[in-house]
């Protein structure tokens, strides 16, 4: 009886984590389609999607720790990697967008400030040049 109750509780917990994770993953991609310019769109994939995938990975860790002997730690590896790389890639994409002068609804920073950060202005430097 107690074993069945534990099984039910673990299943409920894993199911809840899966639902939360999948919901946040969908929310992240929905924001990617719905929001209006690139700088707004950068928010949802980096925050909501990372939270969603993190929740799914916790669900998987709990599930495999419960099912198999020993603690399951592969998921932690993927989670740590994703949590480290998501802000880095978002930062690089934002830098590329600012370098290309991608239009923003709230206006870009002043041209002198932008030029200070990319060295050369995007106009005199073609994207494929060296």
């Amino acid at each position, binding site marked *: 009886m107690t074993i069945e109750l534990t*099984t*039910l509780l673990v*299943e*409920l917990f*894993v*199911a*809840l984590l*899966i*639902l939360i*994770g*999948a*919901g946040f*993953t*969908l929310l*992240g*991609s*929905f924001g*990617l*389609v719905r929001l209006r310019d*690139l700088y707004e*769109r*950068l928010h949802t*994939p980096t925050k909501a*999607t990372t939270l*969603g*995938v993190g929740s*799914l*990975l916790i*669900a*998987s860790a709990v*599930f*495999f720790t419960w*099912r198999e002997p020993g603690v*399951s730690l*592969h*998921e932690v*590896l*993927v989670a740590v*990697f*994703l949590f480290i*790389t*998501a802000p*880095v*890639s*978002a930062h*690089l*994409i*934002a*830098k*590329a*967008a600012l*370098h*290309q002068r*991608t239009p923003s609804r709230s206006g870009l920073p002043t041209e002198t400030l932008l030029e200070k950060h990319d060295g050369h202005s995007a106009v005199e*430097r*073609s*994207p*494929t*040049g*060296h």
Partner: protein
Amino acid sequence: MNELPETGLILNLALAVGFLLVTAAVLLSLWRLIIGPDQPDRILALDTLYVNTVALLVLLDIKLASSLYFEAALLIALFGFVGTVALAKFLTRGDIIE
């Protein structure tokens, strides 16, 4: 369900809903990849696409109750990050390795 006879109804239901939601997320980011007006939009959509794929593989692992696809998920996360960095650097610098 043949692989997992002892997994209960609740977990299977949650897995079905999870697959549905994450697949919808993949399709939405694919849509942004197609229509994205600028190049950074497309890089961002690719980035989201590979993170969603990692989520899909994790769900598949729970479904099959085997840790067979974790290496695949880790590799997708790794190479997706390298790809994003390379594409963003190409847009910023015009070259990947200077």
